[in-house]
């Protein structure tokens, strides 16, 4: 069980690195779907052994929303708007990858220093969670299109979700769920906004967004 858990975590880490390197929007969407499914798997592999109904329920919800719902939705949006398939980056692709690796190294150091003593997080969970979070943020910063920013946001939320998994209890289930729904609503609103951006600017490239400044 534990090694399986570690394996899933490792997969998540690899997916992060691929996200940082990937140059195609479709690929990013797929990776986010993969991450969603891996998150559901993590929920089903509880560290302290017992598996209750609420974990399963939440896992299903995560699978449905993050693993299937969002990616499908985002793909539809990108299809509908006829978005060109390549990611447009602002800082290149090497630098973000480097930043992601640096973040990984830093968070592993952090784990060594303070997290292990706590005994709350399984090995590697904290580094991977933080790396995922920062991967998402790097994508948001690096990519020039509205859609890729949404994907980045999604990935960042995944990282936070990972960190929250060990803390999950019966009582907090509803909140996890509402948070999930909240994220869902956010993605939904963002997608609508992308739609509007496309109709207003006939592109979703954020390079057009330079009107409001000082």
């Amino acid at each position: 069980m534990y090694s399986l858990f570690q394996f899933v975590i490792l997969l998540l880490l690899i997916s992060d690195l691929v996200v940082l390197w990937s140059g195609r929007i479709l690929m990013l969407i797929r990776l986010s779907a993969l991450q969603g499914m891996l998150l559901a798997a993590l929920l089903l592999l509880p560290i302290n052994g017992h598996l209750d109904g609420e974990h399963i329920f939440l896992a299903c919800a995560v699978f449905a929303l993050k693993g299937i719902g969002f990616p499908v939705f985002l793909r539809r949006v990108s299809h509908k708007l006829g978005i060109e398939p390549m990611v447009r980056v602002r800082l290149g692709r090497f630098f973000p990858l480097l930043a992601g690796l640096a973040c990984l190294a830093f968070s592993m150091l952090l784990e060594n220093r303070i997290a292990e003593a706590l005994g709350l997080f399984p090995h590697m969970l904290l580094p991977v969670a933080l790396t995922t979070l920062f991967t998402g943020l790097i994508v948001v910063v690096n990519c020039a299109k509205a859609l890729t920013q949404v994907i980045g946001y999604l990935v960042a939320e995944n990282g936070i979700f990972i960190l929250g998994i060990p803390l999950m209890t019966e009582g907090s289930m509803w909140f996890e769920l509402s948070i999930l729904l909240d994220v869902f609503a956010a993605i939904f609103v963002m997608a609508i906004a992308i739609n509007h951006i496309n109709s207003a600017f006939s592109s979703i490239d954020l390079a057009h967004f330079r009107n409001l400044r000082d």
Partner: protein
Amino acid sequence: MMLILLLFVPVVAGIVMFIPGSWPRRQLLPAVGMLHTLLSGMTLNAVRTGKAPSALGGLLQPDALGVIFLMLASLLFLAASFYAVGYLREEDKLHVKRDFNGGRPFTNAPETRFLACLCFFIAAMTLVTTTPNLGALWVGIELTTLSSAPLIYFHRHQASMEATWKYLMICSVGIALALLGNILMNVAFFHTNADLHGMDQVSAFIAAAKEVQGTDNTIWLKAAFIFLLVGYGTKMGLAPMHTWLPDAHSQAPSLEAALSSGALLNCAFLGILRGHQIMIAGGLGDFSGGLLIFFGLLSMATAAVFIVGQGDYKRLLAYSSVEHVGILALSIGIGGTALFGGMLHSVCHSLTKGMLFLVAGNILTRYHSLSSYDVRGLREDMPLSGALWTAGFLAIVGSPPFGLFVSEFTILKGIFASGRIFVALGYLAALATIFVGMSVPVLRMVQGRPPRDVPKSYSESLYTVLPPAVLCLMVLGLGFCVPDWLADTLNRAAALLGA
């Protein structure tokens, strides 16, 4: 029951707005506003007299801090709801609209959606201000983002789209970080309380924090606060995370901007305050206080930089919000006497800023330009709005006899009491710079001969003048007299923050 009504009246109203057909939707809004304000007032009274109203199994259980912000949100909503009636009527008159930046013609978003989102917006803020639960607080703040995004995009033109996107993206990222802060908070208390059930309640956190005091776990607490600060600070508009604020507030319809600036920023601030409360209990008040002071001063300085030479009057107001948010953070960080000043400041600032944005809306409706260079002779052209604009300017920069003077003075005294002379120096320097910076565009608009190219026959509608006028009178009153019940509540709130 009162609390449940408080939360669900606007929700239901929002849903009702979607009922198709042409019925007087607009007029429903003031009704909701009045009902909500009444309920808020009752809640305030209940909290002030020491009763602890609670509903939904403790999900809604306002304390003095929250109830102040609730009352403010409610009052501003009431003002905005009346204002909306006049505003939308004015909007209807114009069929072909031009982008304020000179772009293509645009249309407005459907009124139904606008009104419904307004209701959801206030509902979300009600949740934020009444819940003692950090998770629910987070959900509420995220909901405010989502419900206000469509409001910003009411005028469907490119600039407002841009603003909406920035708002949505930056705030979402920020709030995601705040969520991480919530989680880290739980991590910090992992050991002290094996039973994590019901842990998200602030009171439970505070109790736990006292146990954590002095242990290694404080490092998690510190990290948690940093995430909360950056996360909610983004939403609140602390520099350098404030970047969305001037865009969103300048492009949003003025009543949304009034609500955002006056009420929403407070809500986000509440998130930070909850963190600060826990930090104080954990013996880390100096750490969080220091951070708040730093960001407070940084925000004031940033605001000063952007206010000086600012040409766009709504951006001006937005940056002024950054400034005042900075003052709030500073005052809480300083503690002591400044806490009372800070709480009073939040009240005065909300009322003043709400009023200013509403007046700015009037000006925008008349001149169709956001640039202060296009507006001249307000005093003559729109006597009431012009007078309110001048009064609002004097109020917001902290001149007597307006309430902000009292609060800023108290905060200054608190700073001196804490012995931080250089903070006082920075505070005064920023205030002075901002005064000078703001006076230029404001006077440019108020003085002079009205431009010839705006139509002559114009009369100010009561709907759009009365709400800001009432707010203005309230701020004026606060400059002379802080009623006992308010002082009482503010003191209770300050006590929660360690005063």
